């Protein structure tokens, strides 16, 4: 039987590969940007730099979300864990004056603990991921408000007499919130790219990543092939929590404060990034490359609408249309 693949079909397979199709969606958005370039502003580097800075926090959340979605799960708590971590980090660094080497790991641990808790409920008690992480989403938001007393935690410290005193933000805030390479790229963008790289390696090269794909593809088959399903799921949610906490730190350093409301609704954006990239909500398929693409597509879309100062109503309608357009463009390329 001749099942050899002709050169032509190899090309057509490239065109049909998910990564290529994801690129097509991004290309469409960029093309729109080139047309509506706001008097050339779209062609300047700092527009792109700002887009990358803005999307970084969402991108970090999307990295963790990718891991979880690949196991055919979902994590609704990423936004709340971001808020919790932003509050904790500000509290430790700004108000209690902890050094960065202590504050950062503590926050990451707290985030990972939230993720592990959801993961435990899902893996051990077989609660549906949507419910378990919904509960965590509400709980972590409550915790953030409780820790912060419902107020933003900033460099303004309340003194005994009720007046406020302003303190200098510590070095870690300045460093993480700054730009590098002659102001050409934000540090948070580098953090995002580093997270993406780590997740990429995990998914593409590490045993754990392969196990996550197997779980998403057919959990029972994975279990019977010796995949430690519970442990792998636990790790996926734990990592997702950890990355959410990292996003929270990035959010806090950019805002120079910890807002207990930070990250509300971000879970939807993070999921949208993952899915627009081309990863399937059903699990077992996808990857970090796609998520990176999805992040850029959403980032550019927002940037273009913002650059052109499109009014809110029109902006929303256009966003809806362009999302559908981009996804259709992905599908129907030949």
């Amino acid at each position: 039987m001749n099942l050899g693949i002709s050169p032509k079909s190899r090309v057509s397979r490239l065109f049909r590969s998910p990564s290529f199709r994801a690129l097509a969606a991004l290309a469409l958005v960029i093309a729109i940007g080139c047309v509506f370039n706001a008097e050339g502003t779209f062609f300047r580097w700092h527009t792109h730099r700002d887009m990358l800075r803005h999307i970084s926090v969402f991108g970090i959340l999307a990295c963790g979300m990718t891991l979880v979605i690949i196991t055919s799960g979902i994590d609704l708590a990423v936004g709340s864990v971001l808020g919790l971590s932003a509050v904790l980090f500000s509290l430790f660094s700004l108000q209690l004056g902890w050094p960065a080497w202590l504050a950062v790991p503590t926050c990451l641990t707290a985030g990972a603990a939230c993720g592990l808790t959801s993961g435990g409920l899902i893996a051990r008690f077989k609660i549906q991921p949507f419910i378990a992480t919904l509960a965590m989403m509400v709980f972590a938001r409550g915790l953030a408000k409780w820790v912060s007393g419902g107020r933003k935690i900033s460099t303004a410290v309340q003194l005994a007499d009720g007046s406020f005193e302003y303190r200098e933000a510590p070095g870690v805030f300045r460093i993480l919130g700054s730009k590098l390479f002659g102001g050409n790229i934000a540090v948070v963008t580098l953090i995002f790219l580093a997270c993406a790289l780590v997740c990429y390696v995990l998914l593409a090269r590490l045993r754990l990543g392969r196990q996550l794909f197997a779980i998403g593809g057919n959990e029972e088959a994975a279990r019977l092939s010796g995949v430690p399903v519970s442990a792998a799921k636990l790790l996926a949610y734990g990592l997702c929590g950890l990355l959410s906490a990292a996003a929270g730190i990035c959010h806090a350093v950019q805002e120079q404060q910890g807002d207990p409301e930070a990250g509300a609704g971000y879970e939807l954006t993070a999921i949208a990034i993952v899915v627009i990239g081309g990863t399937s909500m059903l699990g077992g398929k996808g990857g970090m490359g796609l998520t990176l693409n999805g992040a850029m597509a959403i980032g550019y879309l927002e940037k273009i609408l913002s650059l052109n100062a499109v009014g809110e109503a029109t902006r929303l309608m256009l966003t809806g249309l362009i999302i559908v357009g981009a996804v259709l463009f992905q599908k129907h390329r030949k």
Partner: protein
Amino acid sequence: KDHGSPASSAAPPKWTIGVSQCNLGEPWRVQMNQDIRSAAEGHPEIKVIYKDSQNDSLRQRSQIEEYASAGVDLIIVSPKEAAPLTAPIAAAYRQGIPVIVLDRRVLGTEYTCFIGADNVRIGKAAGHWALRKLGGSGKIVELEGLMTSTPGQDRHAGFREGIEGSGLEIVFEADMKWLEPDARREMESALSRFPRIDLVYAHNDPGAHGAFLAAQAAGREKDILFVGIDGLPHEGQVYVKRGILAASFEYPTGGREAVETALKILSGEAVPREITLSSRVYTPENVEAGGEWLRDN
């Protein structure tokens, strides 16, 4: 302090006040509850219960019904919406429970007292201030609060009225929905498009702060004046002290006034039907001295 020891808390509270706050997601509203709490602290004769309706008028409506049926002595309500809350407030009022409406109005007259500030007036004052500061001409970026909400609409309308007929030009406006990250993103776009921006008028202080951070990242924060609204002690006022904002216009919460009025009502004194709060402007010059009261102009 020894809670609950019979010696210190002489008598049990005489009156129960129910507070219905429409949303605790905004710092300004957290501050309002805080103001009510600190004002009530000195009065052991009242006990205050707080409920938060999570930005949902129907939920707030249930809360008012709950207070009415629990028979509290007075209700302080900061309504989310006028129309849906008019009926339940009127029902409680008719039942004989005094109702103080804080910040946003309800329709009709079936309540005891309204306490609030005037967003249009504050917006207009900000406009006048910008006009004076820029000397009649300049390019302005307006970062709007949620434009489907009345405060956003009023702060917008007032400001436009304030700068009407002058050489001030609004070159960029965007809805940042009261959110700092959105404000920063919109400001970044404005900065990339316009080489010259003289003033940013944001409908709240976090918005102005987000715009400042964007400008700082672009190295242009020195060329731009940032104006915000709300003037909370730990937010706007601190920003002004640090030189981030050129001005922050206070939007008073009325928490303290509400408690004072409530005490008057409960002890049988007459109160006016409407109390309009006056507000202050904080600038680097006057912030240490506690701001300057806005005069009607």
